[in-house]
């Protein structure tokens, strides 16, 4: 495993990755300290302020106010919380489920492999957003259900990735050595195989974080994700959609927030890939 020092040196040499790294950290900090940064934490949490309806961007409201008079900047700041939460939870759970099933399928082979991979194929043959839509419409809208729906459509990618790696790793000599030494199957999979798939896993997870934020935003936009009055970027874009010609700021700023966050995660993900995978290094 390469060290943090090496990663720092890599970031300093690769400006785009550095930009991604800084953006992601900036958004993490914003989400973490939202109550202290937001000009109006109360409005950020979704409490209306009918005296301030329809203010444009100005000195008091940098990003203007929305149809219920809430400060858009405060809401954008608070919106970082569900966005990051859903991204991290979905990727973590999908990667865990996918890794376990992928390891079992890849190492055991045979009919177990066949069953797991056919189930994967089944899930992958649906467009991810459509699958999420079906799940949410069955379970009812809400952030948790949206996250669950995203996990359902995301884990097969991890299962496939890990299964392929496990399959090629299990024929490596060190696995044979371990079994000749009497090391049990569980230990071999846990130590020898899993440890060798962590790099592609990290690369995949880093690249997925941005995509999940985008997908969660899309779900919220069509009303299946976060519910009002929660501050969620996708929901805010949906709120501002009808007013985009009169009050452009209501939809634009949360949209920009999504854009910047996804860009940051993608740049960082690309950077992680180049850093961890020696083959893609120029």
């Amino acid at each position, binding site marked *: *495993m390469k060290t943090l020092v090496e990663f720092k040196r890599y970031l300093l040499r690769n400006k785009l990755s550095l930009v991604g790294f800084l953006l992601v950290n900036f958004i993490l900090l914003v989400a973490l300290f939202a109550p202290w940064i937001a000009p109006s934490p109360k409005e950020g949490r979704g409490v209306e302020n009918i005296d301030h309806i329809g203010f444009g961007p100005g000195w008091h409201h940098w990003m203007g106010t929305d149809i219920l008079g809430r400060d858009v900047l405060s809401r954008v700041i608070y919106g970082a919380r569900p966005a990051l939460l859903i991204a991290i939870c979905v990727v973590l759970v999908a990667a865990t489920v996918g890794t376990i099933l992928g390891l079992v399928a890849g190492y055991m*082979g*045979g009919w177990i492999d066949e069953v797991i991979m056919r189930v994967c194929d089944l899930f992958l043959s649906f467009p991810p957003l459509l699958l999420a839509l079906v799940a949410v419409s069955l379970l009812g809208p809400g952030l948790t259900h949206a996250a669950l729906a995203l996990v359902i459509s995301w884990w097969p990618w991890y299962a496939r990735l890990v299964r392929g790696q496990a399959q090629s790793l299990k024929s*490596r*000599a*060190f696995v*044979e*050595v*371990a*079994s*000749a*030494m*009497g*090391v*049990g199957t569980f*230990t071999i999979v846990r*130590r*020898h195989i899993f*440890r*060798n798939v962590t790099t592609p896993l990290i690369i995949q997870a880093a690249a997925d974080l941005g995509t999940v934020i985008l997908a969660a935003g899309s779900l919220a936009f069509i009303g299946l994700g976060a519910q009002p009055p929660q501050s969620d970027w996708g929901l805010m874009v949906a709120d501002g959609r009808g007013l985009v010609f009169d009050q452009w700021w209501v939809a634009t700023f949360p949209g920009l927030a999504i854009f910047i966050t996804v860009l940051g995660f993608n740049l960082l993900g690309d950077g992680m890939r180049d850093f961890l995978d020696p083959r893609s290094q120029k």
Partner: protein
Amino acid sequence: MSAPIIRVSNLAVDFASKGIVVNTPLRGVSFEVESGKTLGIVGETGCGKTLTGLSILNLLPPNAIRRGEIWLDGHGELNSQNMADVRGVQISFIFQNPHSAFNPVFTIEKQLKIVAHRQGLDHHQGERIIRDRLKEVGLDDIDRVLTSFPHQLSGGMLQRCMIAMALLGIPKLLIADEPTTALDSTIARQILTLIYNLQKQYGFALILISHDVGLVSDIADNIAVLYAGRVVETGTTNLVLSDPKHPYTRGLLQAIPSASVVRGGLTAIPGQVPANTLTIVGCSFASRCSQVQASCANDPALKEIAGRNVACGVVTR
């Protein structure tokens, strides 16, 4: 003469595809090894040497069918149930290529500890024994070796680590499958001497698998010559190598390169090993043998000729 540690009789391996046997690489191999003694298994590529070693520990691919009996002192006949108690504890294995035998993402210490843990040693015992073994295999800077990743060590050092790993639990039997083939010749000699000395120290039985007859003859007490999945000649190393009886053994010994024959070219055995996809009728060596006769159409059994066992229908004394 002490009792044998391991007795292998009529070991045969078939490979099946969709229930149909497509390959018969091992067709009845028998031998026994006594404690503290070395059996050298020699033969050319594809004759079943490695497969013999792997099938003792039942490390065969899932489509392999193993027949015959393997009996281990104190454990009786080995089957898939008691195999778990035997692997790495009673029988250890040294593999050909030390570079691929270690997991590239772990330090040597971590990998040795996984094996030590499997031996039932606790953390402190394990660490002590790992250090003892590494010292015994002739490594000096043990702290550096332990914290190194496999790619940071040379082939010779890694093979020493491999030997240390195999000997963590002092096995009754050590199987060394071409332990020096991936190493250059001076290191190969050192590693072989090391294995020999450790055997004298711990008294385990050793099965040394190699294509290099010269190397095997240095330390093996007995030798078994394998051809097309069968033992064609077996006996004490001195007897077999000084006066080979089977035409194949003779050919094999003539094919050993030495400095004096380089200009004259090497002597090769004409022809090829019969494909193991075929059902072999009669003597498997008949197609390449210079002394072939009509009686070679019958399958020759091992019989005693001049103090050793030979499977040849033509040679009589």
